[in-house]
Each structure stands twice: as C-alpha cells, then as structure tokens.
C-alpha cells in the first residue's frame, strides 16, 4: 500500500510540470503529505522511461514463465514455444494484432491499447502471487520475479496515464476495466488444473507484455519519424 503510494508519488514528482500544464495536475505528495512541486520531465524522456519499463517487464515475465514451466508443468503438457494453449484473459480486448492493423491505428489508440493491457493485468498478477505462495516448493526466485513484475506494472500504468494526458490532451481516462470473466480465484481441487491455469496465466502475460513493448516502441518511432515507421 505504502509502496503504491510511493510509486505514485514518484511519478507525480516526475510529471508535475506537465501535469500543471495539462488540466488537472497530479498531486505530488511526499511522505509527510505536503504538496510539493514535481520536477519537470520531457515527453520524450518519459516515453523512453516507459519503454524501458515495458522492456524489463517483458523480459522478467518471460523468465518467470520458463521457470514455472520447468518446475511445475509436466513435459507433455508444455506448450510449444510458439503457441499458447489456453485462451488468455485479454483476448476480448480490442487490440490490434497485425502490423498492418497497427499501422492504421492512431497514436491514441496505441496508447489506449497499452493502457488497457496494463490495467487488465494488475489484478491477475496479484492473484498469481497468492497462488504461487500456496505452492509447496516454489523457489524464491520465481516469487520475487512475479512480485517485481506486478509492482513494475503499476508504475507502468501510472506512466502511461501521464503520457496519455500529456500527449493526447485528454482528461482522465476512465479505466475500461474489463469486467471479464476472470478466472476463478478459489483453489481448484485438481492440482494439475491449478498448475495449468497458472501456467496459462503466465504465458498470456508474457505475450501481452511483449505487445506492450512493441506498441510503445512503435509509438516512439512515430514520434520521431512519422513517415517511415510502421
């Protein structure tokens, strides 16, 4: 809770000048709760930071997934590298899925897509943390990684929100919280099922993290060189 506050504080501190320029600035609160000015950061730098975040998240999620697969998933059931067996929770999201489609959508939608993805994965990752704790011999490496990813995802969300406001001059976006039929949070009786569910979760997140990374990079390219980018 406190860390979330701190994260938000950091973001606010970073983005304060822009927020002032935009309609409703974020409140930059330090630990004492006093209002203070946020330092200035340029849009390009902000986008760069967001991209770095996304790259890190994507890499760590990939490592977590492969680690989980080695530890808990029986070999016959292991998904090929090139596929994900079960449907992901984000399949319903209107996210472009080909380069041609991506080339056609606007920056706004690109950012919106990223935001949607980020926001839709915050909850499941928290859930994943709890389920992994229930495992008998889950190594600390895996737990730490998933924990780190969930934390970083929150930061990413905040960054993207700020960037959207900054770039698109839009007001606070209503988080299109997908009232998806999320996975059952209760423990399934079958251990294998539970494992496969978690495995699917990690795999889907891995893919979505990669998506976010690509989108943000494309966005950056559009910022610099609009005509030669995808």
């Amino acid at each position: 809770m406190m860390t979330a506050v701190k994260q938000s504080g950091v973001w606010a501190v970073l983005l304060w000048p822009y927020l002032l320029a935009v309609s409703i600035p974020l409140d930059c609160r330090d630990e004492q709760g006093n209002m203070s000015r946020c330092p200035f950061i340029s849009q390009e730098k902000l986008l760069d930071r967001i991209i770095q975040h996304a790259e890190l998240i994507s890499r760590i999620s990939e490592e977590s997934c492969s680690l989980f697969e080695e530890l808990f998933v029986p070999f016959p059931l292991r998904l090929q590298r090139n596929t994900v067996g079960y449907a992901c929770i984000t399949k319903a999201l209107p996210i472009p899925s080909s380069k041609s489609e991506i080339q056609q959508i606007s920056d706004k939608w690109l950012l919106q897509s990223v935001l949607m993805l980020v926001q839709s994965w915050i909850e499941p990752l928290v859930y994943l943390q709890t389920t992994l704790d229930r495992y008998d011999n889950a190594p600390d490496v895996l737990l730490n990684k998933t924990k780190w990813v969930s934390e970083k995802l929150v930061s990413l969300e905040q960054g993207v929100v700020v960037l959207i406001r900054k770039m698109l001059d839009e007001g606070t976006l209503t988080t299109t919280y997908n009232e998806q039929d999320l996975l059952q949070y209760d423990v399934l009786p079958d251990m294998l099922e539970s494992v496969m569910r978690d495995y699917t979760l990690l795999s889907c997140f891995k893919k979505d993290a990669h998506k976010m990374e690509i989108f943000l990079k494309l966005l950056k390219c559009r910022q610099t060189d609009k005509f030669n980018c995808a």
Partner: protein
Amino acid sequence: MMTNVWEAVVLLLLPFLAPNAEGTQYSPPGKPALTRCRSPEKETFTCWWEPGSDGGLSTTYALYYRKENSETVYECPDYHTAGENSCFFNKNDTSIWVNYNITVVATNALGSSFSDPVDIDVVYIVKPNPPEELNVTIMEDKGWPYLRVSWKPPQKADTRSGWITLIYELRVKLEGEDDWEMHLAGQQKMFNIFSLRSGGSYHVQVRCKPDHGFWSEWSSADYIKVPDYFHREKSMWILITVFSTFIFLIFMCFLHMNSNSLKYYILPPIPGPKIKGFDKQLLKNGKSDEIFCALVVPDFPPTTSSKCENLMVEYLEVYVSEEQELILEESKELHNSLKCEGSTSDNDSGRGSCDSHTLLMDKCGEAKGDERQTDGEGHPMEMEAQMHQRDWKEGTLSSAYQDIVSPDMSSGRVKTWPSVFSPLHQCGSTSLNQMNSLAMAKQHCLSDNLSPPGSASSFLPQSGRSTTETHRPNYCEFYSSDKQLSSPKPQAQTHRKLQAHSDINISHKQAGLQSPALRPTEYVEVQRVNKEDMVLLQPVESGCVCGDGCPQVCQDYSKVKGLNSDNMLLLHRDVMEGEEVRSHCEKQETNGCITSHITPATQKPTDCIPTVTPIVQKEMGLAVSGYVDTAAMLTLPTH
C-alpha cells in the same frame, strides 16, 4: 520352338509384373506432417509440411488454418511462393500475437488424411535473415591494430521502428584454423576485435536473433589480412635479454679475472708452517744435512739488529774491578737490559728472543749478577758482594729459569734465544735456578745455532766485555767445546768469569791474575782437562759459528749424558772424539760447578756457590756448562 517357350513364359509372368507398375494397391494418402513454420520479419510467415505416402494416386495437399478466437477455417492463400509443400502467409493474412491452428490435408482419389494440428504464434517463430553488408576494417590504437567489424540488419526486418529488436553475434577465426571465437554484440551494429596476430588472415561472420525467436544463418564471411607489425613487447624483451646477457658476460669476465683472489676470500688457505730457511725442496730431496744447515740463518741470532744489539749481554769483562765499577756495570747493564724491549722478531724463525720480556729481564739481571760474580771471582770480597746479591741474582735466575723452562723445555728445543737478554724484572725466586736458567738460556741460543742436539758445550766467557761490539751472536759464539767440561753451570756467569779467569790463568799459567784487557769476543776452547783437574783452554778463532761451517766447532760440543749422584755431569762426546773423551768425560768430576775444575788453577776451590750444588742436585738436568740436550735434561730428573 524355343521362342515359343519363351513367349509362353513371358505371357505367364506378365500378369505378375504388370500389376506392380500399375499400383493395384491403392490407398488413401499417408498422413502429412507440418515440419516447420518460419517468419523472417514478423510480418509474414511460411509453413512447410512433409507429405506422407501418396497411396499410389495423385495426392493433393491443402492447408487449413484457424485463428484462435474464431472458428472460421481458412485455406492457405499461397502454395507456390515458398516452394514445394509450403504455404506462404502474406502480410494481410498474418496476425501477430494470435494463435494459428494449422492443419494439412492430403487428399487423393481414395481418401484424405489429416495431419496433426499445430499451434503457432508468429511472434515466436521469427527467424530473421542474416545481417547484411558485413564490413571489416583494420584500425590502429596507439600502434596496436584491431579489427572493426560493422554490418547492417537484414533488409526485411523492421528494426528502425522497433517492430523487431535484433541482437547480433559475430565469430572470428584465423585462416586455416578450426576454432571460432564468438562475440556477442547485443543490439549494436559495430564491434571491435583486439589481440590480433601479426600478419594473420581472419574470417568474420555475423548473425542475428530477435528477442523471441531463432538465430539467423551466418552471414557470408568477410576476409581480412592483418599487416605485419613489430611487436613492441617482443622488442622490449629482446632488449632486456641482450642487456642482461651483456651484463652476465661482464660479470663472468670479472669473476675469471679475480678468480684467485675470490678463491682466497671464500676459501682462505690454511697457513702452513713457515720456518725461515726451511726449504721444502730440500726436505723432499732428503738430505738432512743440507736442510738443517739451511735452517741456520746467517744473521741469527740477530747481531746486526740494532734492537737486539742492546739486548745482548755483553761479554763480561773479566777484570778485577772495584765495587763501584761493578755497580756501574750493573747499572749499565740494567740500563741496557731495560732497553730490551720487545723487538719484532720473526715468529716463524722461532727466535722470539727479544720479545720475551720477562726472560730478557731475567737474563739482564742475571748478567748483572754474573758480573758481580765475575768480579767477585777474583776477589773474595767480590764474592761476598755476590753473596750479598745472591738473593737478587737468584731471584732473577729463578724467575728467568722459570720462564725459560716452562715454555721451552716442553718443546724440546730452545726457542727463546736470548731470553737471557730479557730486561731486568723483579725477581722473586730465591733459588739459584735462575742462574741455571740463565745458563740454559745461553745454551738455548747455542742450540738455536743448530748445534747438534745433545751436544753440550760449555762456553767460556770471553775474557773481555764489550757492550757495543757485539755484532756477532756473542752467546752463540760463546760456546766452548769441552769434552770435559761438564759441570752444570748453575752460575753461568760465574762460570764464565771463572773460565775467563781460568783462561787467563791457563794462558798465563798464573793464578789469580786476570788480564784486564781481554779481547771482547774471544772464543776459548777447552782443550782438555789435565789430570790435575785443570782445564786447558785455548783460544779459538772468533767468529766461528756453527752456521758458517765450522765443523770442528760443532764437533766440539759435548752432550750431557747425565748427572751422577756425585753431582757429576756426565758428558759424552759426539762422533768425532774417541772413547777416551768419554772416559774423560765420565771421569770428570764436578761438584756442580765448573769452578771446581778450575779451582786448581784459580785457587778457587770453594768459589762455587754452595747453593749451586743443591740446585744442581735438584735440577739435575738444568745446570749445564755447555750445550745441553734438552731431551737429556728432561730425563735427568729421574736420575
């Protein structure tokens, strides 16, 4: 006839042969299998399949796919672009992050067979083309060359927009070798290779991989030859080697030149015995005579040495003098003897004479005492004076004796040459051994002159005394061969004086007369002792030293054989004389003093200092009138 048979056989066999060509066993096609699907740039992809058996009939293959979220089945849009048994999906048909479910169906007239479905996601099947425009150049960094490799990403891959992020890897190999050296370059498109071999030829290749995908093929190799360059490190080592070799050579030369001195420094030679005049070669030759004569040093005892000159006790002038003169002489002698300081003597020669401080004192004292005695010889008064001085003299003698005896007797050969000349020192002894010692000391010097050991010689004092004219070893000359003169000489000086007296008396045949003027250095030889117990003396040429080759003189030394109970010094002669000499010697009677012999002539029967006798008795082997063999002396105590 035969042809008919053959035709029949062929006809019979034909149905069996024919069906094989025709494939009567038709069957549906075998099951195809998708081998792989690949996307070069994450925008298109291609799938290949392996057809199964066709079942004998023409078989057609179709590929159907289904996307993950829909149930719509699509067929492969392009079967030809990618070649045989392939399906190519172009951009429009390709969706990223979407699962494809692909199936291949083989169909022939009899049926069809489906392959196993394969799920793919284009993101994970990307295998890019190899990097392009590989360029290798040689750069130089402070004289050290290195390779700069640069390349471009494959053309189709869109890395500029960030659609694909590629990482690169290159490998380097020397021409002719088999081992490649791998380098991971990350996302950069340029790389430096260091540590090149001079003059080597290198092959360089590069490949790339997306973040989720497969490695590309290696690019075409680029060759480059590194020019020859002189290894600076090697040149430094060459310099160091040359320099150290040079220094080493100099060091060896130095060692060689100073080898001897170094040898002596490290392993000093053990000093061997060095006896002056000792000639090893002579010893090897084996002629003992030459050896021993060679040992005789011409100037030994040192007479030419001015230092020793003063140490020499001068010949006592035998003349009747007043007591004052006595005292004067004594004082003079004292003075002279006191001058006897340690003179540097050759340690090797064994003289050690003048150095012997104490002995010198004793001798001087004794000489002094002898003088007194001498003076006292002629006069009873003098004798009294001598008696008065006896203690002093005795003390001198004893101390001198002690000094002489202890070191020298043990050696068997008298070493301290004119210990007689030792400066006067306080005498504490009361025995007359001092006088004996003095006598012995004199004999010592005689012995140093290499008189045959064992030959005892009684030396007769020179009738005169001179203090300054002693350029010759007075004492050494101061010998007298006396076959008969065997009395131990507790009072060497006394004896001398007495002998002087006797000399005079003999020469002049007068009793009690003393010639005041006597030649300072005059040898006196005892010719014989007549029946009346008179010692007949005869002068001998002066300057005749044994070392000069006076065989007669040497022969005249008599050796003390022993001392009998009657206080008789038994002398025996050496080779030369006959037995009668021996008989003479043996018959010779002595009461311990030489004076006894001379008393008939000098009318001094009782001039012997009575204490002499006991001394003689006590110190049997010590009191001698002439040269005494120390060995004999040693044996005498047993007598």
